């Protein structure tokens, strides 16, 4: 078993970081449901400690030589020995920092955003649950443990999407999210069980070691890799399970920021990175992943081109960016993927939180509407948003630029140039749709209502509360903006940090030529320019090029009919088909035959009983006949 013994400090910090949120979850659920402030305090307090612990761990272990693993063997049943404990290596150190940071910021932000909601306590309970699950997921030492928290993360996602459960669409979205990720998880589940059956161990460190997989046939390896990747597809909303993520935007915006952009959906990518050595042992699987990442990235980008809903644009963009990460990882760019994950977490959370401010203020998601109502006048969010969008588009010197660059670098080493081309198209589209949104928001079109007459928001009256909320919400924006700006410069130390554990296997990113970087930058600028031409310049019609091609527009806005397909699948095949068939079978065939037997018994009882009535002589005859026949039987 690889791993050095834990330090007591590490252990304490880990336990604090993981268990405190859980404790606060339970405490809120059981005790403080009626006291929202206390609940929020508990939750934020715990996440703060988690954050501090995470940072401390990162700092303590920055020079980590080998992964640290400590676990108790959880003997679930004989034949199933699974270590249950913590694994510490650079990847998850980074991950817990990201998670706890975003969690912390979002929870603070939520103080403002969710103020006055009747489910305030519940919200924080779920948030704590999520924090716990996500932190533990990141630190899991075995696939089973990871799966355990993976599902819990899914649960908290479900609960938070459907947080406003009186809204039908919200519950619908929650259900959809859960079921679709569940579909992926089932593959994951089967995958790791198969893996377990063949290797006898689910420890991540073990799986990542070449020795563990020595005896396994390549095809089986590919199969289990693909199955496990199913979980990633579901969680990270990749093709073909990508449609739940835009719908998940029915949840409160901070939730979208936290779960559906920065952390939870990134868990898929995290899993990929987590098992990167394992996956990379199957080249076939890796190419499939690459393809899926690419397809998702392109599909989602095209969808983002036409959406009018601010959160959905960012949601599509999230899918697309996750696609980028998967592409990077699939192409072997371990660092690129993880780095993009990190930067993306920052700027996407930023984008969502900014949108949240608008939505909170103007109570609409429609970008044209927001623009009309004068969203551009809110300085902090608007600036942050532009920063975020620029980072998203990959404009230097923001964090996104560096990570995109890394991705392009890893794509460019592939023998087939198609992937690079696709990546570049993606870069262009990203820049285009980001700035389409920004320009629409910044520059209200011709047809807008007179500026300065915003529809009065509902809680204009209590100005003081409003101020507090604004300030609370602004703080995370500022922090995230700062992160977005500076994170890119930490690329090299991070690369070293992350690479430390991987260099041994010769998987560190190869040095690439520089032209793809230039091309990417150029295309990003081109995207921004096109957006400027169509939306930004004076007198622009604010109609994108896609809008002008109706069939394409419909295709994109219908999300390539993927949803339709699923709807059809569920309604026609499952509901009206199999389910009804089974139900009818139950009622008609099984119950019918049982009831038929009973009816038949009763009916024959009636007949037999009738035979017992009537004239006495018939009975005498019957007696005699039976007797004679029995006597006859003797002769046979």
């Amino acid at each position, binding site marked *: 078993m690889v791993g050095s013994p834990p330090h007591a400090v590490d252990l304490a910090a880990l336990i604090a970081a993981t268990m405190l949120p859980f404790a606060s979850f339970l405490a809120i659920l059981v005790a403080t449901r009626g006291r929202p402030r206390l609940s929020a305090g508990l939750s934020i307090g715990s996440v703060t400690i988690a954050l501090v612990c995470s940072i401390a761990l990162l700092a303590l272990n920055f020079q980590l030589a080998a992964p640290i693993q400590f676990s108790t063997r959880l003997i679930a049943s004989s034949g199933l020995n699974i270590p249950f404990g913590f694994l510490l290596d650079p990847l998850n150190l980074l991950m817990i920092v990201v998670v706890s940071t975003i969690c912390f910021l979002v929870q603070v932000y939520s103080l403002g955003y969710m103020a006055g909601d009747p489910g305030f306590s519940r919200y924080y309970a779920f948030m704590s649950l999520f924090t716990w699950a996500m932190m533990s997921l990141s630190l899991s030492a075995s696939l089973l443990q990871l799966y355990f928290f993976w599902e819990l993360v899914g649960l908290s996602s479900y609960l938070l999407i459907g947080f406003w459960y009186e809204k039908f669409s919200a519950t619908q979205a929650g259900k959809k999210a859960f079921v679709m990720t569940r579909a992926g998880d089932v593959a994951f589940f089967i995958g790791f069980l198969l893996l377990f059956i063949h290797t006898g161990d689910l420890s991540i460190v073990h799986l990542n070691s070449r020795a563990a997989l020595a005896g396994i046939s390549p095809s089986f390896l590919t199969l289990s890799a693909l199955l496990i990747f199913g979980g990633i597809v579901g969680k990270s909303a990749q093709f073909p399970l990508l449609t739940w993520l835009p719908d998940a935007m029915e949840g409160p915006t901070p939730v979208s920021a936290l779960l559906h952009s920065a952390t939870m959906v990134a868990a898929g990518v995290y899993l990929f990175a987590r098992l990167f050595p394992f996956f990379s042992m199957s080249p076939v699987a890796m190419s499939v992943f690459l393809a899926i990442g690419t397809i998702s990235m392109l599909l989602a980008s095209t969808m983002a081109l036409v959406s009018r809903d601010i959160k959905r644009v960012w949601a599509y963009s999230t899918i697309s960016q996750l696609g980028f990460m998967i592409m990077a990882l699939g192409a072997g760019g371990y660092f690129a993927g993880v780095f993009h994950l990190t930067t993306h977490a920052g700027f996407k959370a930023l984008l969502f939180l900014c949108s949240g401010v608008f939505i909170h203020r103007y109570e609409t998601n429609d970008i044209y509407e927001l623009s009309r109502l004068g969203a551009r006048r809110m300085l902090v969010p608007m600036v942050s948003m532009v920063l975020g969008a620029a980072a998203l588009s990959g404009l230097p010197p923001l964090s996104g630029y560096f990570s995109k660059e890394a991705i392009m670098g890893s794509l460019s080493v592939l023998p087939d140039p198609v992937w690079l081309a696709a990546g570049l198209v993606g870069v262009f589209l990203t820049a285009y749709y980001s700035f389409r949104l920004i320009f629409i928001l910044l520059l209200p079109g011709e047809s807008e209502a007179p500026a300065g007459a915003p529809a009065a928001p509902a809680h204009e009256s209590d100005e003081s509360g409003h101020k507090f909320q604004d300030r609370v919400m602004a703080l995370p924006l500022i922090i995230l903006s700062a992160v977005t700006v500076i994170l890119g410069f930490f690329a090299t130390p991070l690369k070293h940090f992350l690479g430390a554990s991987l260099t041994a296997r010769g998987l560190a990113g190869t040095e690439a030529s520089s032209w793809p970087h230039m091309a990417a930058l150029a295309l990003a600028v081109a995207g921004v320019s096109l957006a400027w031409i169509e939306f930004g310049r004076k007198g622009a019609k604010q109609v994108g090029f896609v809008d002008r091609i109706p069939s394409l527009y419909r295709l994109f806005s219908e999300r390539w009919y993927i949803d339709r397909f699923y709807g059809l699948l569920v309604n026609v095949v499952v509901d009206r088909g199999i389910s009804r068939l089974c139900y009818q079978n139950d009622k008609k065939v099984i119950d019918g035959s049982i009831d038929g037997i009973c009816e038949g018994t009763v009916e024959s009882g009636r007949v*037999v*009983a009738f035979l017992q009535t009537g004239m*006495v002589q018939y009975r005498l005859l*019957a007696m005699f006949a039976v*007797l004679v026949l*029995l006597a006859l039987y003797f002769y046979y």
Partner: protein
Amino acid sequence: MNWTIAGPEIFYFAASLWFLLLSFAPPRKPAADRAHRREYLTAIFLASVGILVCLASIHAQGWLFIRAYSVDVFSQVFKTLLSLGLFLIVSICGHMTDIDDRRHNEFYFLLFVCTLALMLLVSADSLLSIYLSLELSSYSLYILVALRKKQSLGLEAGIKYFLIGSFASAVMLFGMALLYSSSGAAYLPAMAKVLPAMIAHPAVIIGLLFTLSGFFFKLAVFPFHFWAPDTYQGASNQVAAYIATASKVAAIAVIMRVLAFAGHGSAYLVHVLVFLSVVSMTLGNLAAIVQKDIKRLLAFSTIAHSGYVLIGILVLDPAGYSAAIFYALALLAMKFTAFMVVVELAPDGRNLQIEELAGLHKRSPIMALALLVALFSLAGIPPTIGFTGKFLIFTAAIQKGYVWLVIIAMINVVISLYYYLLVIKAAYLLEPAEALPPLVVSFPKKLLAGLSIAAIVVVGFCPYWLIQVAQAAAQPLSLWR
């Protein structure tokens, strides 16, 4: 000859003579009710003394009348059962409204004579004495059935019972003639010596079959069951109870005895018995499903139970015999309890329909409980005596390899549960159309009901002692061979 071993018979003979004498006394018109009471108490007294006499002579052993009459544990156990049955039946005769007041003496006379005849039957060892005892018991029952007052049902039942009965006994007689002429023996022990060697001869086997038909008639086994539904329905409740309990017990005994002597060694005979048993239980259970009249339902259930008992007998080994003996006891307890409820619910002696049970659980919880327990016991649900009996029978059968027979029997148990549940549903679920007053149940009756319930459950749960008794009783049957 040691006369003391025939103590029970002598006692019952004397008791019946006592009632005969009483019946010659001139009727006392004014105080008819009290007279009626006096006869009842006399009967109870005599019946309970009868039990004691039977118990006292339970270890008696020997032969009377030059081996025409054998007294052994087998017969004595059955005699005790019969005396118990008589006592139980007499105990529910307190308000016998459907027998003419002035005929109560005759009624008890017939009841006691019938019991005497059944006792003779279980001890009789020659074909002739078996035949005569059977006739004696049958005739007293024909008359008892036809005695029912005001209800022409009694007459009709009497006619049918009489015709079917005498037809069956004529067939039996012819069978006995064949058996006698081919084996040359008129005594069972003598037959037991010669029959196994010649069981395959047509005359012997057909004679045996015909002979058994008379006993099957008593037990109400297909195809000799036709009288049972009509007779139960037409007879007064008490008489029906008697037919269902004591008369069945004796029939079980005599079939067992005859088969134990004569029935060995013929696969053909076993086939026939299997066939009759399967048809009996299936037919009885099926027909019972649609019955509305409780007594008629119980009649069909009796037919079904005859089928079960027959399983125990047809395995032809001590385990089966002791199981059948135990089952006879079980039948006595269960059927009596069910009929007791019927009698209590119909103080005017009418026939009870199932719907009339509605609301019973409120009107008289103890009677409802008694009915529940009795029916569950009839259905063979543990921990009741009915289950234990069935269990013993099935173990005996499976040990001999009749697995499918037992499975069929168990399926029949399921069918039977359906109609028992219908009755229970009426008693526990349905509410009567108009509110009926609570049923007044006297303390002795409550005690009786409580004891019946306790007997059914306790014996069902701790049957060991009685199983031992049954095994001891079955002992002589295998000794003779």
